[in-house]
């Protein structure tokens, strides 16, 4: 065999494969610089360079080579990087395309791939039987956390996690189409073509870099007079040219969700040497299709026999891809071990390329058709009804021992440098199964095939068990036309796809073998390579009572590795069934779960990172407040001004100053985040009667009222001031965090419980900017700007609302107060918020008023004993608990929560009630959330009778103040209670909740 390094590796065969010899690519593997060709995968390039040892297994650290040439790869997993941050563990060498500068390294080994100390596990493997860890490491008790687990954790895992933040970005698209075709092999392309030419909108995707599927290796099929692969490329190009078609390569359909919603992930730059910074690394497509055509093909299974895992042993189809597509010979002396006809074609292709085939070990009585004769004519020795009893070779297979089927003994040694294996093909029903379709066992061909559909989809080609290419094209075209037809496109005839199939004897992919061959107890016959699950492990699991296939899977971890059992599941099932003495379909199949192949977190996240993770909501006044030095806090999604420190001021000093200034002069506050809902309609008042505990009929237009809303269970849900603008129009305010919930709650009741009411609900939170002006000078500040509203006390008393103008723009002006001072809340259309604010602030500042933030607002309202829902209440507080029973209409026949409120426990006199607390030491500020006890000397567990809900330093009271809920609190006035802190116990006195201006004179002061 001749080769030369300039063509990308010594095992590259001149004239073979589809890559261009002149286009070389330099990459490194474990520090060695190597040359491959553009279009190579890591696996093909390494084999071209004579390297078969590519990884170590999970548990026993056995040396492993590549098993497959595709996404099903269990063994050849590597760490791949472009630079230190663009790093990825567990990359399948059979999928990763090489590019100039790519660095790959082996993983899960120490110190090196060829010499890994972890391999002692292999020697100890008799101890490490399936599930052994459930039976030991229990003594002494504390050793699990301190000793065993840390050791096990270090030994487990595969590659290293990334350690730096991901510098790449990801994109997301939503798409709708008539037909989504998954898989771009002969079946998928034919279906897409038929659907597209009928005018349907089509998306076709395939996980590989080019369309073609099995045509990558199957050179026996010609289509319309050219090679199958060329036809596939031309067809893909033709499709891509059509306006109604989107062709996506390197795109995996990974999840099939409800209502024909399919997730696709497109790998955009991972194969490029120099991606443009504008390109996303990957793109998530969320596709909603009228019809899904599944043309996902089939996956070849390995033979399960002792020593089947040495580097150089691979699937027959993989060897054929390496040869026919990449032009790489996997060895010079390649034996074959098969139970399926398709492996013969691989052998013949290899032989035609100059590779010696020392033997074909055939597990069956004979292969199909004339294959036996053909092989012998070619001079290949075929041993029918034979098995491989063992293999040799530490880092690469060097010989196999062949015995007659069922015989024991050492057998005949045959020297090889590679071995190709095939036990048959498993239809890829993963997505079909994810769609909740039911698979059915086809006894004749020994495989699970798509059975009853659960969604609007159709399976075609190899994944549906159709092996013959002529029948397959027929089925595919039919599916394409039908899909287009179903989507309302008119037919325009069928595309011409003429198949010429030579060597059809070897073309049968059905039949084969599931389960292990050879004596049950001999050697390590791997079922799941990555997780090191052997046939013995599966038999042991069954013996130990694991009779459900799900138990077998979990106990042995078969099929739970990064390949999710694509090659191993059927074998595992068959071995379990055999051990149980039950037919396969009775043992059942484990559930196929999304994703089909692993999906990058970043792809799923897309742009939802940093500021776009959850876009911050800012009020119309945000920029003004920022200019004036506001420090912001997060309240739900909002950014709210917290306090306004002046140069050198601490938060404490700033808040104290703000609180003082509001009471002495006035302050401006941004109240725009409060939820606002407009409730309109002839039945608006009747609706509010049902939603709030209060009665609304008597509220005159132009007046407002504080309202409480309960949940069905009688506990406070939200509160706020509601203004009546007209007989049929209310301006409802809610808490900042409650706005969306409350609207939802209202809609819910309106649509389900009170549909007879004639009411419309509209969220107007973002339509109005709200500037609160509070303090003795509030009226003076706003007076010059107000137009058309008489704001004198007589004309506009506390708790009223007027519509008019301020600064020349429309306003809904509320006279109300959350500070206990004379106050106004000025609603102006959001776009005018800033200019109105600036005008007001200019005057206010000149009058020595201040800006105040949420912290001062909290203190000021606490001085007055006003509650904040969500802080002083927590979903277990009734209006009476909060001292608000006056707000519950006694005579109303119904409102949400009325029945809940009447429950016995909600009427108990010793419920936790809202009270004030004063620390004996006035300078001590309690911690919010601190617990309260009556007996400070009780031992733990102590009897907690309440907790501190709000607590502040009050500049205006000259001492600390607090609110708390305390069991039977209102009957404990004057009592001393205790707040036990880690370092000391604080004495407190129970008081009422109003600490400042008990008479409420300042509202009009």
């Amino acid at each position, binding site marked *: 065999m001749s080769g030369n390094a300039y063509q990308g590796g010594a095992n590259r065969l001149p004239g073979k494969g589809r890559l261009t010899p002149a286009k070389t690519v330099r990459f490194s593997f474990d520090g060695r610089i190597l040359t491959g060709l553009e279009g190579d995968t890591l696996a093909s390039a390494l084999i071209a360079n004579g390297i078969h040892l590519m990884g170590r297994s*999970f548990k026993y650290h056995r040396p492993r080579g590549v098993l497959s040439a595709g996404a099903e790869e269990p063994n050849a997993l590597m760490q791949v990087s472009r630079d230190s941050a*663009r790093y990825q563990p*567990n990359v399948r060498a059979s999928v990763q395309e090489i590019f100039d500068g790519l660095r790959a390294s082996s993983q899960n080994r120490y110190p090196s791939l060829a010499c890994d100390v972890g391999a002692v596990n292999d020697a100890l493997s*008799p101890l490490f*039987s399936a599930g052994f*860890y*459930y*039976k*030991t*490491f*229990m003594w002494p*008790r504390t050793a699990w*956390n301190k000793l065993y687990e840390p050791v096990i*954790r270090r030994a*487990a*895992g*595969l*590659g290293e*996690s990334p350690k730096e933040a991901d510098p*790449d970005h990801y994109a997301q698209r939503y798409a709708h189409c008539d037909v989504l075709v998954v898989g771009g092999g002969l079946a998928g392309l034919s279906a897409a073509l038929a659907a597209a030419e009928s005018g349907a909108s089509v998306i076709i995707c395939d996980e590989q870099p080019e369309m073609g599927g099995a045509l990558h290796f199957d050179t026996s099929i010609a289509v319309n007079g050219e090679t199958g692969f060329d036809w596939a490329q031309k067809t893909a190009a033709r499709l891509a040219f059509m306006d109604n078609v989107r062709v996506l390569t390197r795109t995996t359909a990974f999840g099939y*969700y*409800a209502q024909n919603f399919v997730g696709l992930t497109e790998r955009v730059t991972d194969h490029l040497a120099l991606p443009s910074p504008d390109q996303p690394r990957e793109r998530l497509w969320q596709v909603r299709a009228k019809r899904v055509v599944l043309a996902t093909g089939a996956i070849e299974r390995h033979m399960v026999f002792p020593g089947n895992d040495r580097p150089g042993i691979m699937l027959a189809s993989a060897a054929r891809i390496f040869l026919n597509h990449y032009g790489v010979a996997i060895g010079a002396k390649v034996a074959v071990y098969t139970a399926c006809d398709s492996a013969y074609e691989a052998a013949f292709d290899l032989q035609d390329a100059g590779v010696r085939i020392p033997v074909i070990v055939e597990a069956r009585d004979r292969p199909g058709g004339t294959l036996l004769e053909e092989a012998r004519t070619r001079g290949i020795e075929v041993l029918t009804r034979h098995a491989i009893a063992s293999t040799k070779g530490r880092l690469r297979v060097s010989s196999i021992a062949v015995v007659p089927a069922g015989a024991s003994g050492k057998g005949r040694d045959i020297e090889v440098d590679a071995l190709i294996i095939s036990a048959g093909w498993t239809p890829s029903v993963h997505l079909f199964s994810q769609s909740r379709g039911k698979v059915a066992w086809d006894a004749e061909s020994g495989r699970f095939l798509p059975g009853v559909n659960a969604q609007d989809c159709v399976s075609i080609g190899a994944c549906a068990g159709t092996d013959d290419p002529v029948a397959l094209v027929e089925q595919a075209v039919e599916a394409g036309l039908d899909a287009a037809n179903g989507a309302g496109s008119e037919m325009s005839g069928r595309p011409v796809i003429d198949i010429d199939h030579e060597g059809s004897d070897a073309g049968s992919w059905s039949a084969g073998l599931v389960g292990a061959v050879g004596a049950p107890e001999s050697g390590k016959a791997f079922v799941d390579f990555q997780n090191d699950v052997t046939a013995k492990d599966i038999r042991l699991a069954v013996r130990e*009572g694991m*009779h459900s296939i*799900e*138990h077998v899977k*979990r*106990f042995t971890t078969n099929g*739970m590795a*990064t390949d999710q059992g694509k090659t191993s599941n059927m074998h595992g099932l068959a071995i379990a069934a055999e051990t149980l003495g039950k037919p396969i379909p009775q043992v059942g199949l484990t*559930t196929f*779960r999304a*994703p089909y192949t*692993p*999906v*990058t*977190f*970043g792809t799923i*996240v897309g742009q*939802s*990172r940093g500021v776009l*993770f959850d876009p911050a909501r800012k009020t119309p006044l945000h920029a003004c407040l920022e200019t004036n030095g506001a420090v912001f*806090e*997060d*309240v739900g999604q909002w950014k709210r001004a917290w306090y306004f420190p002046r140069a050198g001021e601490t938060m404490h000093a700033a808040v104290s100053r703000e609180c003082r200034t509001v009471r002495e002069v006035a302050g401006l506050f941004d109240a725009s985040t409060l939820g606002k809902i407009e409730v309109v309609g002839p039945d608006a008042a009747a609706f509010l009667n049902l939603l709030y505990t209060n009665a609304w009929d008597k509220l005159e237009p132009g007046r407002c009222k504080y309202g409480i809303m309960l949940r069905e*269970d009688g506990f406070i849900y939200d509160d706020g001031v509601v203004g009546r603008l007209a007989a049929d129009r209310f301006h409802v305010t809610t808490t900042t*965090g*409650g706005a969306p919930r409350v609207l939802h709650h209202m809609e819910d009741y309106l649509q389900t419980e009170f549909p007879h009411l004639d009411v419309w609900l509209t969220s107007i939170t973002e339509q109005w900017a709200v500037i609160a002006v509070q303090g003795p000078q509030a009226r003076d500040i706003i007076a010059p700007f107000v137009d058309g509203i008489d704001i004198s006390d007589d004309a506009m008393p506390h708790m009223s609302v007027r519509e008019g103008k301020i600064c020349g723009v429309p306003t809904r002006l509320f006279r109300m107060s959350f500070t206990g001072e004379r106050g106004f809340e000025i609603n102006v259309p959001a776009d005018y918020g800033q200019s109105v604010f600036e005008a007001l602030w200019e005057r206010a500042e000149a009058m020595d008023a201040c800006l105040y933030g949420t912290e001062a607002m909290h203190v000021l309202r606490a001085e007055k004993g006003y509650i904040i829902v969500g*802080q002083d209440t927590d*979903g277990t507080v009734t209006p009476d608990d909060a001292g608000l029973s006056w707000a519950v209409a006694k005579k109303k026949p119904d409102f949400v929560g009325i029945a809940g409120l009447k*429950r*016995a426990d909600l009427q108990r006199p010793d419920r936790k009630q809202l009270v004030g607390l004063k620390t004996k030491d006035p300078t001590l500020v309690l*911690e919010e*959330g*601190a617990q309260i006890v009556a007996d400070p000397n009780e031992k*733990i567990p*102590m009897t*907690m009778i309440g*907790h501190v809900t709000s607590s502040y330093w009050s500049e205006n009271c000259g001492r600390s103040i607090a609110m708390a809920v305390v069991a039977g609190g209102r009957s404990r006035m004057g009592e001393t209670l205790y707040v036990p*802190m880690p370092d000391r116990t604080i004495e407190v006195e129970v008081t009422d909740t109003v600490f400042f201006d008990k008479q409420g004179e300042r509202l009009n002061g």
Partner: protein
Amino acid sequence: MRKYSIFAIAREAMRGHKGWDRQWSSPEPRSSYDVVIVGAGGHGLGTAYYLAKEHGIKNIAVIEKGWLGGGNTGRNTTIIRSNYLYDESAGLYNHALNLWENLSQELNYNVMYSARGVMMLQHNVHDVQSAKRHIHANRLNGIDNEWLEPDAAKAFCPPLNISSSARYPVMGAALQRRGGVARHDAVAWGYARAAADMGVHIIQNCEVTGIRRGANGDVTGVDTARGFIGAKKVGVVAAGHTSVLMDMAGIRMPLESFPLQALVSEPVKPIFPCVVMSNTVHAYISQSDKGELVIGAGTDQYTSYSQTGGLHIIQHTLDAICEMFPIFSRMKMLRSWGGIVDVTPDRSPILAKTPVKGLYVNCGWGTGGFKATPGSAHVFAHTIANDAPHKINEGFTLERFRTGRLIDEAAAAAVAH
């Protein structure tokens, strides 16, 4: 029952592991039992175990429609903690935590309870207040839970992003060091093996289709896929399907069932030393012994019995994970799945007698009942054996929704103001 130990393994290793017993058998059902437990999840199997072990009742069947441990027990993210707010919950979950610490030895089955610490992140002033309230209450109840400032949180969990420019910066965390994770399958299997060893029948692939009551209204047994099975007492422990079962006995349950999803990443070498939860950004995460990142999502918005939830829920969760741990953006999701969780109005379980004599119910664990498994099973066994609750589960009645005496842990986490 052959004792499991390193010596037993060594002995078996020498003879090809031929001598292991079945961990549990698959017996033919008897015509009647003293107690029938419906649902072979951790709670159901555990109940059978404690009934046999501590109450001398041996004539017990656990009836399961699928495979044992295949419900939420085998689907959850296995977070264990006991730092709940209210005395009732703290009592129950801490009882469980105490049992977790010895469970491997008790069952002679390594359930891999790993006290690696559960850290709950707090992202705003309101979160901090609520966390402190829990910490203070826990301290006075004798339950460990401590406050960590952001730097200390980062030291405890190095991959954590504590940058103040994060969308929701970490303002601190509550840490329960005794909290952690355990191996879910092992819990179901360990209880099953130990219960079967005491003669409990575990009957799999046998759906209960009816609960029969006699003329006087008392329970007489259950109809199943394998015929009628008589029972003096029936305990329903069926998680997401409890309402369906209780309806068979004419009892309407205050439960809603939602899909809840979880996912794992590909395995990697140790990178994540503890459990981290964030209620504000909605995600929780730990790393399994195998090396997979185990990530839990929120429930779907709508009630459903479908075990597949929407992709958007997973999306929302991974958004949060990558926001808190930007190094994980290039990690890959390997497998995702869902379970059906049964949610009560106050987010606390029901562990109680019912108005029907002889019928008991253990449900309502919602998104967080794995942690309670041993404690719940233990007191539920007591409740069935004595026809009266254990002191620890006295408050977890069905009547509380009628009287209003709720144990509202959800409310305690409350709403933003």
